[in-house]
């Protein structure tokens, strides 16, 4: 394993930094990452004719070889997308029974689970309880039917999905990537648990680790099941509801 290090005390790096994408042996097709669409692209000062690449949470992607990498995103972007898909506004506009999305793991899970939120115009208050999230996840295959369709010939009809339904947007777990340019398509798979847990009060690392060393008991089985379910929550565009017929 080799190591090369260059440092500059004055803060100016001595290492040559190329702002341009490095020349590749094979043509590098630019892949679109999880992006914020920009109206104007600032120009790089060293190469005025080359626009700086896309940005992700303040980072600038200078080069991405789509033969090997098709997407990159940060936890911040994932949380924003999850919040956006959940239909919440920035901060307190989420009907999850919690004031803020970052109030805790439960709120984070609820806001990250689009199945939990009915499509407009109806919005159901969502129980922040994690058991509710798992129950909704299991019911994801059902259609949302906001109104009764008159029965014909004694048979109740079901509303057929329309192209405007958000849950019909193709997402998939693989293959779509972000090549289509839609930022939401980068949100594949579950949110990582480390983000779902939200803010957590950490004591000094040594104290925390001591507590960890002291706790030798096995975790409760229901906690393990819960963690397993949380790690398999998927974020899709579909809105899933169970219609309670009274």
């Amino acid at each position: 394993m080799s190591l090369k290090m260059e440092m500059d005390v004055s803060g100016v790096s001595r290492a040559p930094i190329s702002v341009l994408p490095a020349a590749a042996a094979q043509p590098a097709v630019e892949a679109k990452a999880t992006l914020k669409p920009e109206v104007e692209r600032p120009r790089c000062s060293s190469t005025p004719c080359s626009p700086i690449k896309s940005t992700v949470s303040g980072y600038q992607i200078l080069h991405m070889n789509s033969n090997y990498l098709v997407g990159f995103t940060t936890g911040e972007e994932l949380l924003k997308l999850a919040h956006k898909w959940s239909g919440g506004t920035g901060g307190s506009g989420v009907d999850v029974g919690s004031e803020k999305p970052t109030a805790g793991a439960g709120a984070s899970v609820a806001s990250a689970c689009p199945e939990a939120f009915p499509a407009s115009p109806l919005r159901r208050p969502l129980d922040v309880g994690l058991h509710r999230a798992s129950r909704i996840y299991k019911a994801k295959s059902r259609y949302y039917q906001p109104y009764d369709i008159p029965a014909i010939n004694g048979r109740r009809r079901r509303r057929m999905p329309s192209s405007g339904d958000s849950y019909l947007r193709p997402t998939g777990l693989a293959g779509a990537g972000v090549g289509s340019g839609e930022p939401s398509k980068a949100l594949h798979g579950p949110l990582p648990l480390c983000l779902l847990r939200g803010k957590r009060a950490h004591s000094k690392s040594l104290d925390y680790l001591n507590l960890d060393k002291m706790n030798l008991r096995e975790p409760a089985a229901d906690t393990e099941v819960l963690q397993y379910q949380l790690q398999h929550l998927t974020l899709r565009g579909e809105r899933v509801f169970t219609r309670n017929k009274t």
Partner: protein
Amino acid sequence: MGLERRPPGGPGCWRHMPHRRWHRKSPVCQPALWPRQEPCEACGPRLDYLCGPEDNVYNIDFTRFKIRDMETGTVLFEITKPPSSNKGDKRDVDPNAGRFVRYQFTPAFLRLRQVGATVEFTVGDLPINNFRMIERHYFREQLLKSFDFEFGFCIPSSKNTCEHIYEFPALSEEIMREMIHHPYETQSDSFYFVDNKLVMHNKADYSYSGGP
């Protein structure tokens, strides 16, 4: 160095997780002793962070990152963070969100053998002795490989550039197939130490099912 396999149904077996108890953390795991003691390999990827953002008392800030294939020199990815990035907007953002990234690789990435990772970072006003990173890559609960990189000493208020070479382990076709078909079940923990004290903990997960 290959995979560390665990017996079916034993601790760390992913498929049996909902049905039986298993030790999420080994009793002998003592991260407090890292890196003097070899990190516990029975723990699997961390579900949480072992330190808070406030533990980065040395104000280590990564400003640039690049990875390249060492065999061909092909640059795979390069990202930079401008120094003028506005941190005021991050008031309401989960502090852990800035410590997590997600990559969507293509299956071709798994065929690479050596990848060079160049990282540029700035440090605060304190000198940094024995700056070291231990990075562990897992597929589900299986440790793929552990990497140990030394940055050495860093002068206060300096900007530093360092390249590390990742020697990827030889993966079986079966494992690669599983990794491709189960995106984001490959994860990594990056632990940063200064004078053997944990100051930063970053996480990432990976998909290998992306297509060009």
